[in-house]
């Protein structure tokens, strides 16, 4: 482990909300704990009410770094098929090509086709049919073919 590696690690962490990192490699070991000060602010739950706010889903998978995450490029309602009767565009296990339609996000009555960003295999579908999705929300995980 070289200083350059750690530099790269810290740079990496800057953009994330990781609070702790431990790494052992070739006899080296590094543990990084990040700014828990601000992580400490927690606003109280806002009143009662049935509608739970949509939240960014945290994807924590072993070996996730090899996977490609397809995210929602706009806010809208997520559909896995072109119509309620039609079959889903893709299922877990489907082999997909870059540019292939994976799902639809409806916004303002417009059906926006979301395409695969890589060749590979769908390993996980993260959103249920008919659910609202946020901008940037992960929709699918794809294991790219090498």
């Amino acid at each position, binding site marked *: 482990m070289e200083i350059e590696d750690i530099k790269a690690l810290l740079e990496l962490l800057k953009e994330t909300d990781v609070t702790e990192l431990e790494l052992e490699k070739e006899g080296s070991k590094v543990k990084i704990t990040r*700014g828990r*000060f*601000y992580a400490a*602010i927690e*606003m109280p739950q*806002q*009143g009662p*009410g049935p*509608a739970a*706010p*949509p939240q*960014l889903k945290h994807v924590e998978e072993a070996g996730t770094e090899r996977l490609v995450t397809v995210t929602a490029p*706009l*806010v*809208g*309602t997520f559909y896995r098929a072109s119509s309620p009767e039609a079959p889903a565009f893709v299922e877990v296990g489907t082999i997909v090509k870059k540019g292939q339609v994976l799902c639809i996000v409806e*916004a*303002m009555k*417009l059906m926006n086709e979301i395409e695969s960003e890589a060749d590979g295999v769908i390993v996980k579908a993260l959103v249920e049919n008919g659910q*609202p999705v*946020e*901008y*940037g*929300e992960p929709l699918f995980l794809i294991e790219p073919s090498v």
Partner: protein
Amino acid sequence: MFKKILIANRGEIAVRVIRACRELGIRTVAVYSEADKTNMHVRLADETICIGPASAEQSYLNVPAILTTAEITDSEAIHPGYGFLSENPQFAEACAASGIAFIGPTPENIRLGGDKSKAKQVMKRRGVPVVPGSDGPLSGTDSAVKIAKKIGFPAIIKASMGGGGRGMKIINNEEEIQDAFFMAQREALAAFGSSELYIEKYLRNVRHIEVQVLADSKGRIIHLGERECSIQRRHQKLIEEAPSCFVTEKLRKRLGELAIKAARAIKYRNIGTVEFIVTPEEEVYFMEFNTRVQVEHPVTEMVMGMDLVKQQILLASGQPITAKKVFKPRGAAIECRINAEDPDRFIPCPGKIEFMHQPGGPGIRVDTAAYCGWTVPSHYDSLIAKLIAYGSNRQEAIARMRRALDEFVIEGIKTTIPFHKRVLENKDFIEGRIDTGFIDRLNNPAA
């Protein structure tokens, strides 16, 4: 009443609207850009939706994303705050088309408010005095020269669709007209998408006084007195007060009547502000109509003991104005806009707030979305806090503001707090000798 409102804004005004909603028992939906994930308005809302990347065009100005969010969250109304989509008539129309209430005036009100030259024409015709100048837009440099000669120099060329100081050129003599005209045209086109210009007499060292109006859906209109907004730097307000120490009971009555006349002339709805120029001789000229909640609305709230944002929501939901009396101010209030800016050069200075401690105690109100550990993003407006001081009179409000500015600790970024301290210690300010030339004189005492 609405059960759920989407707030199409960020920062302190989004927090302000959330507070009003919570006090009214209305659920809130916060929208936010990727740069604003940790913002206070996101922390305080009942529901939150990320609507796009940092760029305002793709997030807070992204009409489809906002309307879609309103739909998927079952929001019944949208509060636009100020800036962003608040003065966009197409957005107000799109809300109506989607069956969502727009918390603000009608699209026609917004359209006229945005067209400064046309608004002046309408007001003049309805008997509200306006600054002498062109009656509508200029056809070219020839007509600019002709009118300038008639009204006398200095004159000012302004963009019809303008605001915030852009597309404005002062002309001191006939020779300057040609250049000023074309430069203003270019600036106006770049900033507002329209090169339409108008000209009027340039009045130096006047006061900028505005009147708050409320109008219900039945056409009843009342006013809540004036705000003094003469402390400006490049046509940007920095410190506002209510009431104006210049305004006598007689002048207040006249300003109020003119504001109501102006609102009636355009069948105004919801809350709005009529801006006037007032000369040292108490001549009053209509300047423009602001069709949204103002940044400086808290000073009126403090002296009137009334919540303007709640009023705005109640009026948008169709509630009538029931107040019978004419509202009279009690005490005095001052607002200082605290920007993340270099206090000497007024250059935005985003970054992380390493430590923050808010002032408190009697008469002090802080409206902010900032907190200890928050990073001010570089993508948006630099206003990070509004510090409001109330006192039983102007002198007490000034004393409070001074001690509150001393108590306010913001570390890690530069702010305009030192600038405000300078103003609040200035003899002319303390004695109420303020006009639109105040900041220039403060920075160039010799001039």
